[in-house]
């Protein structure tokens, strides 16, 4: 594989928040690569730093956040021409970064109920980005494109619906509008931050099918954040499992599902509800609670909840080991394998 087939490459991303004059590390040394036209899923329970990771990448962070990274490289492909941008060097709200948001990186947020501005027509909200990045485009042209996008995303009666306000849409339809908003400038990367968490199950399936078809038809690269293992199995090509701000296991979909190695990944997969479970059998849970990030001690973050915890797990930083090609696990159980960074 050519290096330029990696559309987004993040190296040693560290994000911390300043709270009460204390610096709390939320994301620690995260490195990941997104291959062109594939889906990378970032999985983990609430508060593990999934959202913070992607928001750090696109630089949509609150003021009390400190983001550091060796590099965040984005390879823009226009026809055959490839341009490289280092997002870590750009001003968060500067001109260059803004030019990338929309035409290159589109975002779909978690809660469609609150991610649309209540006081503007949905059509205008979708067209806003388009008009911003194409100053010469007329309002009529923009409207035509929005209509085409609405049709593509299966929003019924788009001619009338573009003049409706968000409160006149159902949750699933709103999420389609949010996806339209992310897709309208035809971006290379789509970052979907738990796109279906706020929706009910049947709508979830529709939305995910929609995203899958967009990806296969238009060769989009997707970063999918979720805690839903079913969704991961359905969508992902590669999977990052995160726990307390660290990637604890990384591999292809097959690696993670057929050979889960990190105790946390195993536990996570065991706690997925299955249809037809024996009567009286309880769904497995992971013992303990996620620690407070402000009170983390050294060693493995999962140590307190891990069934295989040993003394050396509580010392220093645990390195990652490559248990098979492309499958990395951050756990001392695998210290017989080659150490990688």
């Amino acid at each position, binding site marked *: 594989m050519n290096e330029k087939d990696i559309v987004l490459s993040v190296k040693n991303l560290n994000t911390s928040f300043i709270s009460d004059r204390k610096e709390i590390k939320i994301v620690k040394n995260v490195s990941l690569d997104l291959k062109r036209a594939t889906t990378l899923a970032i999985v983990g329970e609430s508060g593990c730093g999934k959202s913070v990771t992607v928001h750090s990448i*696109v630089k*949509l962070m*609150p*003021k009390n956040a400190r983001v550091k990274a060796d590099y965040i490289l984005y390879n823009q492909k226009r026809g055959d021409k490839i341009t490289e941008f280092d997002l870590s060097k750009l001003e968060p*709200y500067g001109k260059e970064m*803004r*030019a*990338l*948001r*929309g*035409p290159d990186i*589109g*975002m779909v*947020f*978690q*809660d469609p109920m*609150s*991610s*649309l*501005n*209540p*006081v503007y027509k949905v059509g205008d909200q979708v067209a*806003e*980005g388009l008009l*911003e*990045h194409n100053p010469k485009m007329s309002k009529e042209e923009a409207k035509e494109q929005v209509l085409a996008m609405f049709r593509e995303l299966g929003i019924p009666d788009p001619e009338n619906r573009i003049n409706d*306000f968000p*409160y006149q849409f159902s949750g699933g339809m709103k999420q389609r509008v*949010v996806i339209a*908003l*992310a897709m309208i400038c035809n971006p290379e990367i789509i970052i979907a931050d738990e796109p279906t968490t706020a929706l009910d199950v049947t709508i979830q399936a529709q939305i995910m099918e929609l995203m899958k078809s967009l990806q296969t038809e238009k060769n989009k690269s997707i970063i999918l954040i979720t805690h839903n293992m079913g969704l991961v199995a359905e969508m992902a090509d590669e999977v990052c499992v995160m726990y307390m701000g660290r990637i604890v296991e990384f591999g292809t979909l097959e690696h993670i599902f057929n050979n889960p190695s990190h105790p946390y990944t195993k536990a996570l997969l065991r706690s997925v509800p299955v249809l037809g479970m024996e009567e009286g059998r309880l769904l497995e849970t992971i013992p303990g609670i996620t620690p407070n990030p402000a009170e983390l001690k050294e060693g493995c973050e999962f140590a307190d909840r891990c069934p295989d915890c040993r003394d050396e797990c509580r010392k220093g930083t645990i390195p990652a080991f490559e248990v098979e090609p492309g499958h990395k696990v951050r756990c001392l159980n695998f210290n017989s394998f080659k150490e990688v960074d």
Partner: protein
Amino acid sequence: MLKFIIKKLLQMIPMLLVISLLVFIGLELTGIDPLSYMVSPDMAGSAENLERLREQMGLNDPLFTRYFRWVSEMLRGDFGYSIVSGTPISQIIAVRIPATIELALLALVFSTIIGVGIGIVSAIKQNGIIDYVGRVFAVVGQSIPQFFFGIILIQIFAVSMGWFPVGQRISPGGNWSRIQHLVLPVTTLTLSMCAVLMRYARNTMLDVMNSDYIKTARSKGIPEWKVIIKHGFRNAMRPVLVIICFRLPMLIGGSVVIESVFSWPGIGTIIASSVIAGDMPVIMVTTLMVAASILVASFLVDVFTALLDPRVRLGD
């Protein structure tokens, strides 16, 4: 939108009637006898004479007869006469109301511009210099009572420095002197109103700027000033407008204190003096005016909110 406005206007009519009835009954319950203020005890009118006077003035009629007489007279534009001075109430109001409205509107406009402006800037540059200064200013502005603040201003700028007149609205000297007269009372009202507005505007703006749709707007790559004005400001303005509109009745009826401090010849001083003198017809009309201004304010809130928020406009 026109239908919405007409509907809201029509809703005000029954409200006004109910309020007028409440005012009427309320004053009835106070048991003030208008005659005791009209007729000096020295004149020692016999009980018989007083009774005849009562009968003549219709004071012995049943409550509701008197109420309907009052309302129908007012509808015909006859507001009655002041017991104390004998002048028509419509005349008193016509003389006084421009002074009050002048003061109220100026204070409202200045405090809105300054208060909302500083509030929005302190929200965007949270914990910046303007935010800190604004915070101190807000505490000071809210904790010093208006009358005290007015007296301090008079002491410094009128008595010691002699830059501005001590009180009153007009002194010979044309338009320039009118402005000079306005400066101190308007400053006093503006500063105390600013303090509240500033904090409120800052907090709602902060809330809005942390909401999800602001993140969505930023993810589109539009410039930050557009995010702030188009997506932030418009949404933050809705609750702030409610506060601003409800300042209007407070300024019209409630600047009693400020009008007294600056001997400002407005409605506020009339309310105060008519209550002291037991001037029933004047109390009734002015109270009704204050109530009506509250209705107008809430009507304005409805219209502005509907303009800003489609959910209100199209909701039903």
